[in-house]
């Protein structure tokens, strides 16, 4: 079983070959976007962080940008900085280039304003894209897949068809030696005992339970019932009643492979196989975390129809809700509603998702890539804005 990808000098494999335009602070987003809009084959990552935050979160911003810059789907990286932010722009640039990747930096306050910075950035990006375009896809084994698992805008169909089907696809990738990353720790609440039973050993199991407790304590610290936030108003309209019910459906997407390791947000796994990564359930933060951890493709199940992808990682949308498939066709990639109606088995649907992941990894565009619905991303913060 193989797919066609871009093999990088450090051995990792890209499923896309973009020049990444990464904004280092919320104040540089307009310039990063301005550059990316004028140069084909660039992908722009914008976020709301990088200044007036505690050192814990500034480190999180630095580490996340380093992880994103190192993602194998980026051939090279252009950092766009304002100049006065807290983000360690030089540290980020050095860490990304340490793996042999070209990194350029545009500093708006040094160059003299947005217009001049966009012009300079466009010229840099054009030259970088010219180099990137010399890369060719080569045959790669499935073991080079690093799959991100995500579900969003869930309803009761999610836990019955797309999540268990994705779990089967994830198991197939892990069996072939690939990696699968499960985030969304909030959506373990009420199902963590089942996930912990899947842990490689007791220590990993305890780490999973600790992550869940940390997330639940954080949610409870505001002194309210989390219902309405988790499950969301949309989840509730879709028939999900409690976070426990949502979680029991959500963890099905991890399949049955053992959980080999547990990582903090955005940290690249050091093992191949199924791993857990800390993250909340909201799309902008979890998609960014999966990309920073090195995912080269993401599989995203949805009930009511979550539209977004990620700027440089293809996101395959899978639904088991036939109404959503019909109404949001321009956002959906795979329809497994036949499972709900008993016309397709879960193993058949899982195999179909696995095939789709390999085809997308080989270059077939997802709906989120075609529509470019990828701009509103963010980084998961733990402390306040100060």
């Amino acid at each position, binding site marked *: 079983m193989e797919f066609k990808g871009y093999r990088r000098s450090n051995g990792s494999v890209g499923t896309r070959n973009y020049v990444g335009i990464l904004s280092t602070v919320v104040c540089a987003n307009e310039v990063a976007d301005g550059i990316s809009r004028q140069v084909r084959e660039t992908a722009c990552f914008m976020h709301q962080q990088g200044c007036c935050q505690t050192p814990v979160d500034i480190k999180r911003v630095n580490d996340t940008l380093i992880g994103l810059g190192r993602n194998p789907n980026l051939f090279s990286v252009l950092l766009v900085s304002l100049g006065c932010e807290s983000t360690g722009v030089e540290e980020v640039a050095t860490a990304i280039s340490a793996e042999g990747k070209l990194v350029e930096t545009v500093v708006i306050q040094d160059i003299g304003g947005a217009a001049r910075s966009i012009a300079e950035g466009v010229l840099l990006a054009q030259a970088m894209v010219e180099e990137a375009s010399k890369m060719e896809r080569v045959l790669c084994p499935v073991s080079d897949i690093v799959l991100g698992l995500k579900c969003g805008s869930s*309803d*009761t*169909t999610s*836990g*019955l068809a797309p999540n268990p089907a994705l779990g089967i696809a994830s198991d197939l990738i892990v069996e072939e030696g690939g990696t699968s990353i499960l985030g969304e720790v909030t959506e373990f*609440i*009420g*199902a963590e005992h*089942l996930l912990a039973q899947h842990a490689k050993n007791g220590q990993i199991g305890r780490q999973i339970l600790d992550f869940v407790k940390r997330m*639940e304590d954080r*949610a*409870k*610290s*505001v*002194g*309210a*019932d*989390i*219902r309405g936030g*988790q499950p969301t108003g949309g989840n*509730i309209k*879709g*028939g999900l*009643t*409690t*976070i*426990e*019910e949502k979680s*029991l*459906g959500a963890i099905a997407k991890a399949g049955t492979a053992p959980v080999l390791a547990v990582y903090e947000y955005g940290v690249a796994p050091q093992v191949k196989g199924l791993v857990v990564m800390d993250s909340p359930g909201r799309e902008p933060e979890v998609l960014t975390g999966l990309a920073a951890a090195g995912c080269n493709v993401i599989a995203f199940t949805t*009930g009511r129809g979550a539209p977004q992808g990620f700027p440089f990682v293809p996101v395959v949308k899978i639904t088991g*809700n036939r*109404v959503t498939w019909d109404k949001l066709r321009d956002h959906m990639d795979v329809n497994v509603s036949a499972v*709900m*109606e*008993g016309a397709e088995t879960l193993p058949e649907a899982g195999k179909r998702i696995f095939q789709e992941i390999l085809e997308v990894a080989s270059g077939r565009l997802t709906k989120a890539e075609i529509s470019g619905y990828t701009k509103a991303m963010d980084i998961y913060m733990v402390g306040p804005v100060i």
Partner: protein
Amino acid sequence: MTQIKVRWKSLRKRGRKMKIDAIMIKEEDNVATALREMQPREKAVVGIDDKSIEVLIEEHIPYGHKFAVKHITKGENILKYGEIIGRATQNIASGAHAHIQNIESLRGRGDLD
């Protein structure tokens, strides 16, 4: 208390699978998920693997929402996937809509601490 008699029937007739209106994951579950919108006094065929039961629907059930497949008493755990998904805040009649109006979550309850 109206408790329905649970009589499991085979879903396969002459090798063909019967169409179901709702699905249960585990036999111990006390709620089922509707696979189509249902109205009061409809008889719902609830499938679980290759078996089924019939439940008389008592209330309007939107697509994807749950209904009780047996009488559930206030304070009783709600079971789906064979796991606890919450607790009944009032009695729930068989065939009644089982959702946020009669089920509370036991987790993430910062309001109770």
